[in-house]
């Protein structure tokens, strides 16, 4: 997997390159908007991580130019501008995700993984399956093995998101944004309580737990430990 990091701050860029390389990605880096656009135009990257304020060319302009050239490489905007208006602007300009600086590295990795999956398998499915857990999007029913599990609508959405990202870490912020459409940090860890409720329903009484807590990062739904 090849990533392009367009970031002018040396320290942040070095931190990104080091961290992402350790996660097994091949990372190219550019500190300038124009050069970044040139590199991105090759279309040879799997995802682009983009700062908003760049020398040479603004990050949003870069994205606009890229999308105008019909290059749809999934992009994540990194920015110190964090208001809802700024997010909306970034996403409208063609960004696929928006992460406000400073950020936890685990959050960034989780989001990049989600982006990479979105770029790949866009096949319409009606059933999601992880081990013996099955979620039917049409009948909106959930089964584990032969046991039918009753979920509240929000729990169903939560499980759907976790299953679509099965095997990967999803952070609390990602859940808040995608399942609840909230863009703020609740002071209490409300997400933890929701997840533990869901866990009660899908894991309780079964030998193998599927919903795991990843320390310092978030949650992951997967078959093995």
């Amino acid at each position, binding site marked *: 997997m090849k990533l392009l990091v367009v970031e002018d701050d040396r320290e942040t860029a070095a931190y990104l390159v080091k961290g992402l390389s350790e996660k097994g990605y091949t990372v190219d880096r550019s500190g300038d908007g124009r050069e970044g656009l040139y590199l991105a135009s090759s279309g040879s990257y799997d995802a682009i991580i983009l700062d908003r304020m760049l020398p040479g060319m603004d990050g949003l302009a870069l994205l606009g130019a890229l999308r105008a050239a019909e290059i749809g490489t999934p992009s994540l905007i990194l920015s110190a501008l964090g208001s809802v*208006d700024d997010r909306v602007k970034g996403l409208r300009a063609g960004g696929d995700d928006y992460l406000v600086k400073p950020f936890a590295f685990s959050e960034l990795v989780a989001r990049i993984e989600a982006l990479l999956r979105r770029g790949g398998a866009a096949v319409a499915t009606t059933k999601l399956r992880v081990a013996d857990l099955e979620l039917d999007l049409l009948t909106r029913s959930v089964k584990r093995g032969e046991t039918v599990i009753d979920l509240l609508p929000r729990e169903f959405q939560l499980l759907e998101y976790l299953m679509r990202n099965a095997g990967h870490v999803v952070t609390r912020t990602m859940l808040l944004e995608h399942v*609840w459409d909230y863009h703020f940090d609740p002071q209490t860890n409300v997400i933890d309580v929701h997840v533990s409720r869901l866990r009660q329903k899908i894991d309780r009484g079964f030998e193998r737990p599927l919903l795991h807590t990843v320390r310092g990062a978030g949650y992951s739904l997967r078959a093995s430990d």
Partner: protein
Amino acid sequence: MPRLLSQIHRLVRTHAFRLATLYFAVFAVSVLGVLVFIYWMSADFVERQTQATLDAEIAGLAEQYDQRGLSGLLQIVAARSAGDRGDGMLYLVTNPDGHPLAGNIAGWPEGKPVAPGPLSFRVSVKIKDHTEIHPAQGALLVIPQGYRLLVARDISDAALFRERVKAALLWAGLLALCAGIGGGAVMGRSLLRRVEEVNRTAERVMGGNLSERVPLRGTSDEFDQLATNLNNMLDQIERLMAGIREVSDNIAHDLRTPLSRLRARLELSLLGAPDAAAQSEAVRAAIDEADRLLTTFNALLNIAEAESGTRRNAAEPLDLAQTARAAAELYEPVAEEQGCALKLDVEPGIMIRGDRHLLSQAVANLLDNALKYGGGEVTLSAHQHDGRAALEVSDSGPGIPEGEREAVLDRFVRLEPSRSTPGNGLGLSLVRAVARLHNGTIQLGDNHPGLTVRLEFAAL
């Protein structure tokens, strides 16, 4: 003297002066027009009337001549000339040489040609004990055999009337001119004075005194309206400035403490023998501390953003009931875990204009507070009444003493018993800022026991 000159120069350059000049020019031209018209109408009228009288008189005498011959004419002329009839009519009949035969004019006016048509000449008139030379206007009829009949009228009265009218009009014109100049000057000056008041206030505000306001006259004219608007603008600016100052004070005060704690923790981990486990523990603790700092920082920015009212999408229609239910749904498991009953009393379809994200966060903060500090039974209700949408969160906890209710809305204020629980004292500040951004109100009340927080907005 130079001061006066510069004042005049300044006056001449003002818009008010130009307006007054224009007003005056239009005024002068119209007054002049009216005066000329009056003069022309009255003078011409008198002249034409005289001419008509003369024509009628000549026609009448010619008829008499036709019927009664020259002697008859002489008789009538003599009769009409006798005595002063007061109408100023003058008659003269002469033989072909110009020698007078009858009439009240002494002789044929000197140097005047013997030709039919209007005739202007001067005549000496006997008034009581002296004679005066008066202007006269006449018409001539030449009778066969060369006899001449001159009928005229003393037009000294008409001339006098004309002079009077001329003088009156001149005076009236001068008076109107003065009134115009005076009116223009007064108008210009009063406009200028009002504008000057605004300018002086603006200069003082620019000089740093934000509490200056434009004085009002209480006339509610357009200048008062302008002044009111400017004053409202200044109020808003002052509020924003105060907000910025407060935020920077808060940041200085309340972020410095955790920052120094963070620094101390990292420094401590470098002291003593290197111990990998202890160091990574210290780093983890430092990251947690940094995260808490960021949360506080974000909350402050959020509040500042809401308070400065820069969020323009605070105007999209949204259902407050739905926002309330969504927030309740988010917190319901937390309430259950804490053994609190979260009750929902929400009327469906309460439409207001607002920012969904900020309102959600405000409701979430209220629920968070109620569960954290209140507990017992927490009720979230939303109702619509008389064009107002009200959202209320109440708990049955210890409540807040009446004297401290206003204070908890300020940033970083945390009451004594709650200082030990995690939190940054910014939750209610954000709620208040969000309420204000939506032109709403926030009220803290007693729930007997517990606290009730009530938000009110204008319903759609």
